[in-house]
């Protein structure tokens, strides 16, 4: 989700004109410049419960929204960088065939940019996966929170936390491995991308 929104933001920033790109800059600054915990708090208590009066909203939905918005702000940077590295001539060549600009972005620029940004994307995933404990503040029990309650019941702190660390490690390495495989699969023969 963050990737889709991040891509839209990157397109808006690159091709959307001054007003759109300024708005996007504010958005990105906000989400990158403040803590995830604060964002979760603000959205849960401030916006959903306060302004929208949704007392019964599921914190998990809020968590999902905040994570998406936060991750999009970061990913916009990756996507934009990757899109800029696809040289302008690829766009010109597309236009020369009669493709419209959105078509050229869709069929030429993005497929090339996505290949370049997979390594950056795996970074983003690993840091996001480890920031789930921030959600405890709005009442979502993530892995760490679950571990804490087990530990305090059983008094086996070291074992519990070590096990939880292991789960994170496994989870993240599996996803990274999958991304690596995808990266290899879509790599273009004859081109070494160093990103």
């Amino acid at each position, binding site marked *: 989700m963050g990737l889709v929104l991040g891509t839209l933001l990157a397109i808006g920033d690159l091709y959307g004109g001054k007003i759109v790109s300024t708005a996007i800059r504010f958005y990105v600054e906000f989400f990158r410049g403040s803590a995830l915990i604060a964002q979760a708090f603000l959205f849960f208590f401030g916006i959903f419960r306060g302004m929208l009066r949704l007392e019964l909203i599921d914190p998990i939905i809020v968590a999902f929204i905040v994570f998406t918005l936060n991750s999009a702000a970061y990913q916009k940077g990756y996507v934009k960088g990757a899109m800029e590295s696809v040289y302008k001539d690829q766009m010109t060549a597309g*236009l020369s*065939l*009669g493709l419209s600009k959105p078509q050229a972005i869709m069929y030429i620029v993005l497929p090339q940019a996505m290949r370049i940004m997979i390594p950056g994307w795996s970074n983003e995933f690993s840091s996001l996966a480890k920031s789930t404990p921030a959600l405890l503040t709005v009442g979502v029990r993530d892995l760490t929170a679950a571990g804490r309650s087990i530990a305090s019941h059983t008094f086996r702190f070291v074992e519990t936390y070590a096990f939880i660390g292991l789960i994170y490690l496994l989870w993240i390495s599996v996803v990274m491995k999958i991304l690596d495989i995808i990266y290899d699969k879509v790599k273009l023969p004859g081109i070494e991308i160093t990103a």
Partner: protein
Amino acid sequence: MTQTVMECANLWKIYGKIVAVKDVSLEIKEGDIKLIFGPSGSGKSTLAGCLAMLTTPTKGSVFLREECLTEPGVDLNKARARIGFVFQHIWLFHHLTARGNIELGLRRVMKSPKKEARERAMQALREVKMEKWAGHYPAQMSGGQQQRVGIARALAMDPEIIILDEPTSALDPELTGEVIDALRDLAKKGTTMLVISHEMPFAREVADEMIFLDEGMIVERGPPDLFFTNPSSERARKFMARLIKRTRRE
């Protein structure tokens, strides 16, 4: 009477203080092969870009058939689909195979069904003798092979005119021959072409008219024989002498 395919009238392109194209007018009729040449920086590529509406001219007008492309509100995407363009630096789409490069325009612009697009792409590749390379990516081909695919990509769209912006100048000398051969085949088929090139033997063989451009202006124009025997302007004479000397060395 043969019809005019493309025309430009009093075309100017100004970048800040630099005048790249200065009051150029020309007309290309069906089946014509016009060859533009001139020193580097003389505005050849800019002129080619303006004619294909990949660059917006500052002043003047460009016509494709009867339609004026420089008027506001013209669907430029549609117009560009009717004009083939071959780039100096080739610019194939890196993430697509030779065939994919050609199919993209057919599928997305011409809206051809998959099967037809594939057949047309293969046919275009055959015309430049690249059918064996259909499944290869640009990075796996030599420059000359890539440029032949570039020509096939333009060709497959059945354009009314093909504009070639120095199609061989970015290639190693030993690779220009195969590209020139492909162009020669196009010429034989009566394709309307505007070629920017300094390949003089090729020019002499196929061009109906040669146009010498310097400092953004047409300095002299006429049949190839004129340039090879007795150009009237001093600048053209000097430039020709240099080119011929270089060609002999090669």
